[in-house]
């Protein structure tokens, strides 16, 4: 080998990159560098999926999320169902009973009204099914090319029942991690529909409102430490967030993670790991080991939790790190990715 070349490289960070919206390391960096210094306060700094507020003795959960999914319609749902379910779920995993949503629309000039009507009808249907009301909203129209059809922001308010105290820093060594069902279906359904992706699949998004499941879980009496919905970044990122917040290790058993064969196949084809693929109707709970059976049984009674199972446990070893035990018995790291496996999944 003659010349040895190994060029020094820089990742440009002077501009916003797609990865800043991925929910991975770059998103966390953006929050730390830009948003937290400006907005930081004790409530925001808890970094939950929802802010927990106390007003006149009433505990509220408050959250907001924007939806820019492409394509607008996909197997199993559309941007409207995501906008309702996603915000409800951010409240539900805080243990809250979702009550009210706002809905703000940014519409691109030229969007067919029929498309908007379909999306709005879906939102109303999803909200009604979930027992929440959309009580305020806003509409803005931007010039053609300034957005992609329709962007939606929803915010939600819910009531946190007495005694419910869930937070990502509550996981303790000895606890176990429970997953509500098979993973990766939303992300793969989106990728299958996306322009330029020439593969077909029967996989439908798992988009669903999780608050009935979470309420049932809380009612089971199991000592639940925290719940999260593994959306962007998938199960891997969610477990990393909990491990870091609680300063514990989480060791998951590869063989116990349910992945449907179609999702597995699509992931093999695309070179993706299902652990990093987005879900919109699944949740992960950390629970005291002795209550795990009781919790899983209660989840099986709900149609959204029939696939619930223990996938791993919380350890004192490897704090801040998620590890995975392969079927061969070896351990490997399950890292937090810097970026999306592919941009703009949800």
């Amino acid at each position, binding site marked *: 080998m003659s010349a040895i070349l190994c060029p020094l490289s820089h990742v440009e960070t002077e501009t916003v990159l797609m990865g800043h919206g991925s929910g991975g390391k770059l998103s966390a960096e953006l929050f730390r560098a830009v948003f937290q210094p400006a907005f930081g306060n004790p409530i925001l700094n808890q970094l939950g999926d929802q802010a927990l507020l106390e007003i006149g003795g009433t505990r509220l959960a408050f959250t907001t999320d924007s939806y820019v999914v492409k394509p607008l319609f996909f197997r199993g749902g559309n941007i409207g169902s995501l906008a309702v379910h996603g915000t409800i779920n951010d409240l539900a995993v805080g243990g809250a009973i979702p009550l009210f949503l706002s809905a703000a629309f940014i519409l691109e000039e030229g969007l067919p009204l029929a498309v908007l009507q379909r999306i709005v009808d879906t939102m109303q249907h999803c909200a009604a099914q979930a027992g929440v009301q959309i009580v305020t909203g806003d509409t803005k129209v931007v010039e053609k090319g300034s957005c992609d059809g329709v962007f939606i922001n929803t915010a939600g308010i819910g009531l946190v029942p007495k005694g419910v105290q869930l937070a990502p820093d509550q996981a303790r060594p000895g606890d176990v991690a429970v997953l509500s069902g098979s993973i990766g279906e939303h992300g793969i359904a989106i990728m299958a529909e996306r322009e330029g992706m020439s593969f077909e699949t029967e996989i439908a998004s798992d988009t669903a409102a999780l608050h009935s499941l979470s309420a049932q879980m809380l009612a089971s009496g199991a000592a639940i430490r925290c719940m999260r919905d593994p959306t962007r970044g998938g199960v891997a990122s969610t477990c990393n967030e909990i491990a870091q917040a609680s300063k514990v290790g989480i060791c998951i058993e590869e063989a116990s993670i349910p992945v449907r064969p179609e999702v597995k196949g699509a992931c093999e084809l695309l070179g993706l790991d299902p652990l990093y693929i987005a879900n919109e109707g699944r949740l992960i709970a950390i629970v005291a080991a002795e209550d795990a059976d009781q919790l899983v049984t209660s989840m099986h009674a709900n149609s959204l939790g029939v696939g619930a199972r223990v996938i791993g446990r919380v350890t004192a070893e490897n704090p801040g790190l998620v590890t995975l035990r392969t079927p*061969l018995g070896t351990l490997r790291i399950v890292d937090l990715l810097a970026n999306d496996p592919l941009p703009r999944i949800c």
Partner: protein
Amino acid sequence: MKYLDEYRDSNLVRALLARIERTVTRPWVLMEICGGQTHTIMRYGLHELLPKQVEMVHGPGCPVCVTPAGILDRAVELALRPEVTLVTYGDMLRVPGSQMDLFSAKARGADVRMVYSPLDALRIARAHPERHVIFLAVGFETTAPANAMAVYQAEREGLQNFSLLASHVLVPPAIRALLASSACRVQGFVAPGHVCTVAGCKEYEEMACAYRVPIVVGGFEPVDLVQAILVLVTMLEEGRAAFANAYTRSVSYRGNVYAQNIVSEVFEVADQTWRGMGEIAQSGLRIREKYAQYDASRLFDAKLVEPTVPAVCINAEIMQGLRKPTDCMAFGTTCTPENPIGASMVSAEGACSAYHRYRRQNVETMP
């Protein structure tokens, strides 16, 4: 899943490992060539399960990693031109050049698109006759046929607004360069299964004979790899330097002749720079004169300048199997997948990146 689960069968892997254990009597250094194989070894921790005498070192077979930074600089520069749509595989978008990656170029307004096949780039060119569509075509013998097909088809259709920015590398010259080095420690090679599926086995058989080194074609699942390692260890213990194919469900002796034909129709063998290894004679492919109008490097006067070398990086030694990623001072500190210094940290299939992702620290074993 059929054709996958049976090759990930942990009982079968353990049985093969036990046979390696019974066969091996002294230390051997083996190299898997392909980044996909490195990835499987790290992902499943196969190196921890092999007997101590069998040391796996990791070869230069990650196509994304070995793509010269100069090509990426060129791609970024072309992408930023207002008339150009730059199209490539998803994993090329985050590979840093000396200034920025293609995602950053996109953030600055460049029209950069991701596809799964160069034929999709042709589709974009047909749909947008007002744009010049450049496909950044990288990879080993495996990706060359589809890229060649895109050029061939563009010529047949008379497409005027499509070209390839090609940076193709060939495996056998890299193995020869490794073997010719006096520092070479490698005593046996796991040859890349997908490359051999296309290119066939002849060249590997000849190298095994000429350099008196065992070469065994291996696949990408744990059973495939452990099987190939067993064959290599058996040969080495018996003092045989032969060629064998341990990936017969995919690899035939002649390879894919149709694919080979389309490649030699469009490309010819040429000298090539490898990121992390420097220039290796006759180790790449360039577009033939006949198809010059589809060669972005001719159309746009692409003179490649490779950026200079930071002293800290030991990538070249890693790619030659002389050292491990964890021997590097920069590993995981100044050199990470987000800010790679060395070629092997660039893509998920590079050795440094696979170590960083799966094994960057010794995870404490749990009861």
